[in-house]
C-alpha cells in the first residue's frame, strides 16, 4: 500500500513536467512577439523592451525554460503584468472562497443525491424513481445562471432569507459565511445532485440484484440496513469517482456562479487574467488546477481500497 502511494506520487513528476512544458510554451509559441501580445496595441518600443527583459525573452528558449523552472521550484510564479503583485499572492487570496464553496457544494450534493439515488433504486419503476429521474434531467438541462438568478429572486429578494450577493470567509463567523454561501452552493449543487443521484441509482440497481443482498434479506436484516450497509458500500466505487471529478471541476473555479453571486474566487481571477492577457497569472492557474486534478485523482484511487477490500495495489 505504502509502495503504491510512493509510486503514484512519483508518477506525478512526468505528468507535471509535461504540464510545465506546455505552460511554458503557451506564451513562447503564440504567433507573433509575446511582448507585443502582452503589452497590447498601444505599447511604445520602450515598454516592449522592458517586458522582454522582465520575462527574459531575449535569451535562447532552453535557457528561458531552465530559469523559469528554477523559479517555479522556488514557488515563484512571477508577477502579474496588470497589478504588479506576485501571482502566488493573487491566487492565495482567491483560492479560499473557491475552495470553501466547492467543499460545501460537494457535501450538500452528496447529502442530497446519495439518499435520492438509493431511494430511486429501491423503489425502482415507481413514482419515486421517476421523480428522481425527472429531477435529474432538469438539473442537467437548466443553465447555472438561470438557477442562480431564480434562487436570488426567490430566496434573497422575495423571501429575504439570504443576502443577494457577496462572500464572507468562515473566519468572519460561520453563520455569516453560510448565509452568503448557501445560495451559490445550492446553485452549483443542482447539476452535481443530478449527476450523483443518477450514478448512485444505476450503481445501486446493479448491486441490489446481487446474491448477497438476497442473503442479507434471508438473515432477516431490515431494509434500511440492507440498503445502506450491504448495498451502498458495494455501489460506492463509481459514485466516488463522480464525486471526485465533480470536486476537481469545482476547485478549478466556477466562473458563472462566481459572477452571478459576486464571489472573489479563482474562476473570475482566471477569466479576468485571460481577458487582460495577464500571462503569468494564466500560467499559475493552469499549473495549480492540473496539480489539484492529479492530487484529487490519487485521493479517489486510494479511497477505493477503503470501500472494497478486494482492491489492493
Amino acid at each position, binding site marked *: 500500500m505504502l*509502495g503504491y502511494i510512493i509510486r503514484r506520487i512519483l508518477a506525478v513528476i512526468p505528468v507535471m513536467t509535461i504540464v510545465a512544458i506546455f505552460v511554458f510554451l503557451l506564451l513562447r509559441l503564440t504567433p507573433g512577439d509575446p511582448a507585443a501580445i502582452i503589452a497590447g496595441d498601444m505599447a511604445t518600443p520602450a515598454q516592449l523592451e522592458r517586458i522582454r527583459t522582465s520575462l527574459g525573452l531575449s535569451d535562447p528558449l532552453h535557457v528561458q525554460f531552465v530559469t523559469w523552472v528554477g523559479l517555479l521550484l522556488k514557488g515563484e510564479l512571477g508577477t502579474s503584468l496588470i497589478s504588479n503583485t506576485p501571482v502566488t499572492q493573487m491566487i492565495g487570496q482567491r483560492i479560499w472562497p473557491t475552495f470553501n464553496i466547492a467543499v460545501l457544494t460537494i457535501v450538500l450534493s452528496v447529502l442530497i443525491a446519495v439518499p435520492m439515488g438509493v431511494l430511486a433504486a429501491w423503489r425502482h419503476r415507481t413514482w419515486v424513481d421517476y421523480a428522481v429521474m425527472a429531477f435529474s434531467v432538469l438539473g442537467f438541462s437548466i443553465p447555472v445562471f438561470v438557477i442562480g438568478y431564480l434562487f436570488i429572486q426567490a430566496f434573497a429578494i422575495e423571501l429575504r432569507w439570504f443576502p443577494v450577493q457577496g462572500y464572507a470567509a468562515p473566519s468572519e463567523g460561520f453563520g455569516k459565511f453560510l448565509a452568503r454561501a448557501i445560495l451559490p452552493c445550492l446553485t452549483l449543487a443542482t447539476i452535481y445532485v443530478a449527476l450523483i443521484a443518477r450514478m448512485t441509482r444505476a450503481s445501486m440497481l446493479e448491486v441490489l440484484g446481487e*446474491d*448477497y443482498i438476497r442473503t*442479507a434479506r*434471508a*438473515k432477516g436484516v431490515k431494509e434500511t440496513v440492507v440498503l445502506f450497509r450491504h448495498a451502498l458500500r458495494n455501489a460506492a466505487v463509481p459514485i466516488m469517482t463522480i464525486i471526485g471529478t465533480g470536486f476537481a471541476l469545482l476547485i478549478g473555479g466556477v466562473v458563472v456562479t462566481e459572477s452571478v453571486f459576486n464571489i472573489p474566487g479563482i474562476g473570475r481571477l482566471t477569466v479576468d487574467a485571460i481577458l487582460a492577457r495577464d500571462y503569468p497569472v494564466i500560467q499559475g492557474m493552469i499549473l495549480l488546477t492540473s496539480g489539484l486534478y492529479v492530487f484529487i485523482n490519487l485521493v479517489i484511487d486510494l479511497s477505493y481500497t477503503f470501500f472494497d477490500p*478486494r482492491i489492493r495495489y
Partner: protein
Amino acid sequence: MKFKTRSFDAAPSVLEIEDLTVQLAGNRTAAPVLDKVSLKIRQGETVCLVGESGSGKSVTSLSVMGLLPKGALEATGGRIGLEGRNLLELGPQAMREMRAQKISMIFQEPMTALNPVMRVGDQIGEVLDTHTRLPAREKRARVLDIMNQVHLPDVERIHRSYPHQLSGGQRQRIMIAMALILEPQLLIADEPTTALDVTTQKQILGLIAELQEKHGTAVLFITHDMGVVAEIADTVHVMKLGRIVEHAPVEDLLRRPREDYTKQLLQSVPSLTPRPARPEPQGGAVLSVSGLQKTYGAHGVFARREATRAANDVSFSIPRGRTLGIVGESGSGKSTVARCIMRLIDPTEGDIRVADREIARLSRHALRPYRKHIQIVFQDPFRSLNPRWTIGRSLIEGPLNIGADRKAALKRAAELLTLVGLPDDAVNRYPHQFSGGQRQRVAIARAIAMEPDVLVADEAVSALDVSVQAQVLDLLDELQKKLGIAILFITHDLRVAAQICDEVVVMQHGHVVEHDTAANVLANPQHAYTRALIEAAPGRLWDFANFRELKSA
C-alpha cells in the same frame, strides 16, 4: 447403496405447504408458476425437491422465505404453515423475525452469496445483531462457536477474513454457520453444493447431515442432482412445470418410480459405467500436446510472489474421430490447458501440434489460418453468444473471417442449424429466443461452421439439465461420427466423462496424475486422487437408469 430409511411418522411436522399457488404479478391469466404445491417436512427430516430448471423448485423455497421478487411474482393461494401460523399472512416485520430464527436458507453460489466488502465474522455476527441483544464478548463467542461447529480451520483468522480470501467450500461453511447460528427449525438449502467440487460437495453434505442430527433441524434440500438425492434424502418430491408430480420415500422413488416424468429424469442421469470401447482409430493424431506448461506471475520488476504453475508438463494426443476427456476439480489446470491449446492464452513452454503444424509459438498473425482447425464451445450458453447479434451473424462470422462468400456462408449456416437439430429459420432470430440447450446447440454449430479438426468442449454441458445434457452429448457423438472430428472434452463430472470419452486424463494441481482409457480410469483407478474423485461422486453405487443397485463389475 444404503438409503435412509428412518420413519418420521411420529415426529412433529415443521413446515406444511398446502396448495401453494404463485403467479406472475399482475397477470392472473398466464399459467401459474407454482400450481397447488403441497409438501410437509417433519422435525429432523430431509426432504429433497428435484426437478429441472424452471420447474419451480427455487420459487417454492423463496415463497417459504417470503423473498419472492417484488413486483414479479406473488403468492395468490394456499398456505405455508409453520408453528400454526400462515407465513403468507405475516407482515414484513413479522416475516423478518421468522428468518434466521425459525427458517434459514443457504444458496447455490457461495462465491456471490456473501457480501464481498464485509468481514465474514461480521456477516455471521449480523444475524445476532438483528435478532438478539448480546454483549459484544458473548456475541463473538457465539460466532466463533458456530464457526467451529462447521469445522472451519483457524477460526480466529477466518473471522477477520473477507470472502475473497476463502475457498468455495469455506464460504459455503460460512453460509451454513450464518444459517444455523440461531438454531432454526427449518433449513432450506437451494442447490448448496452445485457450484462446488465433488470432494468439497461430499464434505458439505456430510456437514449438513451432522448439524441436522445435532440440532434436529428439518431440511428442505433443492437439487437437480439425483446422485445427491440418493445420498441424503428421506423423502423426495419431483417437480415439473410448477407442480409436484410425484413424492415418495427415497428408496421407493428410485426403485419404483410411478410417473413417466420421474422415470425419464432418472434415465437421463449419465451412468458412471464407461461407454463400450470403440475400435482403435486409423491414422495419426490431429492434436498433440507435449510438455505443455503455463506459469503465472513470474515476470514483472516488482513481482515478489512465487510463480504459479497452472499447468505443468501436460502431454497427450487425440486421433481423428476420438474423444479425450480432461477431468479435474477447480484449480486443477484443465481449463488452462484448453485455453493454451486455443491460444487464448500463451503457453509458457511446450509444443502444441494441430494439423501437423506447431502452433504454440506462432505469432498472433501467423496463427490466423490455423484458428479454423481448432474450435471451442464454452460452458455458459447464456453468455457465450452476442445477445445483439442474430444467430446467423454469429454463425457466419468465422467463415467470413477466413474469406468465405457471404451468401454461401449463410446457406451453410442454415444447414448447420438443421445438423444440430434446430429449425433453419433460426438464423434470423436472437439468442434470448432460445433455451439453454438450444443455445448450446448454436454454439456447437458455430464451432463446426469452421470445419475444424478438433473441437474443444470446455464444460460444455455442465450448465444444462440432465435431460438436455444427454441430448447435447448425443449430438456431439453424432457429429463426431458424421464429420470425423476429434473432441477434447473438459469436465469436472466423471459421469459425463464416462459417457463420451474414449480416453481420460485426470489432472490435479496442474499435473496429469492419470491417463488411460475411460474404462480403465473408471473401473480400475491407479492414482489415489482419481479414487478419491470416484468415491466422492454421489450415488455412485446406484444404477439410476435401471432403477437398481449397480451390478458390481
